[in-house]
């Protein structure tokens, strides 16, 4: 052990004697480790961002939308199929293990207050929306059951809309015009911030039945005369019951839509779990790709270390001869040079960790997500650095240990 400490001291002394050469040699490893660290941190950050996004929507939510979701296309765009209030009630009646449920109508609405005007997405919602999106009002209240059944002309504003119309004034109790229909503001939602789908706060909520019967009548009328909804959402009791809920929903809808066996669904059931898995698969592909780049830089850095160590062994032939003459054994010389190579790669790795962490720290200034430098990534980087040093240092160290002391002492 004392000999190892001695070798480390010696290695640091030798490396600092050739400071610029050592630094340049380390650079390869630093870049490789820096790449690995920043990329893993970015991956973790993106993952956390996505998790956060979905966690913001309540847990165990399963949504049904009309039409078959074509890969790459927007939901509902491919088919004239519709979902109706009847579908909603049937699902609620026939699906076990659900904690909450809701149905929504979605449209674009034009808001006017005094001289100000703003166009946003308007959702006709049931009160359970707060549970399903895990989103509550900051001021006032949300849509309640009585608002819905009485088709009251009330509206809850998103933060962006509230700012657009009222600036800093209190909107609650004020009357705005939605598509020229006067609506009383009963609440303002908390801010959800921006996401990759845009500003989540540029929205407004009205009671579902108000939307269907008083604002968007034309859009909300099915051919059968039933009222249309754009989405039905239920909250499952747990992740474990998700498959049974999905299959119950599918059975109900296929029966109601009179689909024969072999026909494709004319609706799409999406669960958060699936979405998260899809994004997870995406990010892991990204991480594998970026990890490969890091691995290549580590390989190149390792070859650089081997090169420099071979040069060092040649330059120090006389020193090796002397050390052998005064009693160094083969394994002593071997470990001395091996430790030197590992010290080089490890220091390079530590610099790389700092570089990677630095990049991770700077990213939030340019992007929406915050990279996370995880202990596991740092551990991985340290492990890689040591392995690279050992692997690429072994051959030069072996060459040094094999030198004949007589010839080495005579070397000019």
């Amino acid at each position, binding site marked *: 052990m*004392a000999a190892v400490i001695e070798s480390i001291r010696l290695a640091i002394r030798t490396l600092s004697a050739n400071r610029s050469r050592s630094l340049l040699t380390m650079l390869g490893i630093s870049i490789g480790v820096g790449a690995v660290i920043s990329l893993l941190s970015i991956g973790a950050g993106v993952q956390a961002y996505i998790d956060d996004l979905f966690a913001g929507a309540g847990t165990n939510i399963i949504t049904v939308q009309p039409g078959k979701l074509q890969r790459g296309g927007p939901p509902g765009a491919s088919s004239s199929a519709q979902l109706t209030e009847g579908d909603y009630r049937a699902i609620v009646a026939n699906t076990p293990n659900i904690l909450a449920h809701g149905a929504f109508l979605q449209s674009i609405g034009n808001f006017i207050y005094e001289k100000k005007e703003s166009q946003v997405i308007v959702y006709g919602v049931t009160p359970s929306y707060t549970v399903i999106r895990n989103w509550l009002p900051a001021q006032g209240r949300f849509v309640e059951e009585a608002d819905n059944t009485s088709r009251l002309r009330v509206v809850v504003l998103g933060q962006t809309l509230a700012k657009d119309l009222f600036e800093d004034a209190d909107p609650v109790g004020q009357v705005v015009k939605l598509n020229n229909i006067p609506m009383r503001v009963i609440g303002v939602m908390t801010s959800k911030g921006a996401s990759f789908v845009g500003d989540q706060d540029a929205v407004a909520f009205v009671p579902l039945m108000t939307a269907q019967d008083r604002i968007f009548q034309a859009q909300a009328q099915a051919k059968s005369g039933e009222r249309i909804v754009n989405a039905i959402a239920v909250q499952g009791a747990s992740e474990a019951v998700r498959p049974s809920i999905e299959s119950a929903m599918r059975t109900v809808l296929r029966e109601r839509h009179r689909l024969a066996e072999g026909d494709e669904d004319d609706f799409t059931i999406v669960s958060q779990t699936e979405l998260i898995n899809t994004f997870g698969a995406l990010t892991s592909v990204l991480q594998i790709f970026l990890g490969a780049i890091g691995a290549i830089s580590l390989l190149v850095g390792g070859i650089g270390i081997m090169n420099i160590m071979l040069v060092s062994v040649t330059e120090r032939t006389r020193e090796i001869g*002397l050390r*052998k*003459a*005064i*009693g*160094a*054994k083969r394994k002593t010389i071997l470990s001395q040079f091996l430790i030197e190579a590992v010290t080089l790669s490890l220091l390079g790795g530590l610099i790389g960790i700092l570089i990677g962490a630095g990049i991770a720290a700077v990213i939030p200034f340019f992007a929406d997500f915050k990279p996370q430098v995880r202990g596991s990534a740092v551990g991985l980087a340290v492990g890689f650095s040591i392995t690279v040093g050992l692997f690429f240092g072994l051959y030069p160290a072996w060459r040094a240990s094999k030198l004949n002391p*007589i010839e080495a002492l005579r070397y000019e």
Partner: protein
Amino acid sequence: MNNNGRTPVIDVRDIYKTYQMGEHEVRALAGVSLTIYPGELVAIMGPSGSGKSTLMNVLGCLDQPTAGSYRLDGVDVEQMKEDELAAVRNRKIGFVFQSFNLLRRTSAIDNVEQPMIYAGVSAKDRRARATEALESVGLGTRLKHFSSELSGGQQQRVAIARSLVNNPAIILADEPTGNLDSKSGAEIMCLFQTLSREKGITVIFVTHDPRIADHCKRIIRIADGLITGDDLVAEQRDACAEHSAFTAAAALTAAAPGKMSAKK
């Protein structure tokens, strides 16, 4: 030689060493026998190609004889493996080289500590013993100096301290004054004579320089791989006196430089 029945520190019997040089076999040592007793100051002399260097490598356990036996300080070494030889060199032999062979960018004391690191001596003891050894060669005030900050004579004294520090059975000095001027050479030989007289260390010089040999008690001559002479020196020269003379002359030069150079 009268050694009063003491055990020799070096007991070499009938040593051969042959090298394969392409198709030719070169016989560097052709049956060398020799004994050296503790406390001796011996010069092994011979022209280049005489087998002198080969003999030194064998005596220094850097090389193995092709045939014959070698007993060093009571241990048979001719059959030892590489790492065992390294241990023997570490414990029983101190090396002093023509070109000093100090580690670069390393302080005097760290250089002297090196053999003790390989011997597994604790850091504290190493420091104490290295300090002591450097004091004994007159460098007690230059412990932290790097070799680049020391004169040739001082560097060689660091090397001597390094050779002494594991209390070896013998010191092998290969042309130790070859890279030094006459004054520093006298200083180094004075140091060897003093160490031999006061501490009873055994020093074997390998040289072709008669001025070194004259300072020894015994001269072994080698030619064509054989010992051709083994004589006691009748009048051993006193290196310390010569060194004092150099110093005195230098003092005179310093006092009256014009006069001295004119005389020259």
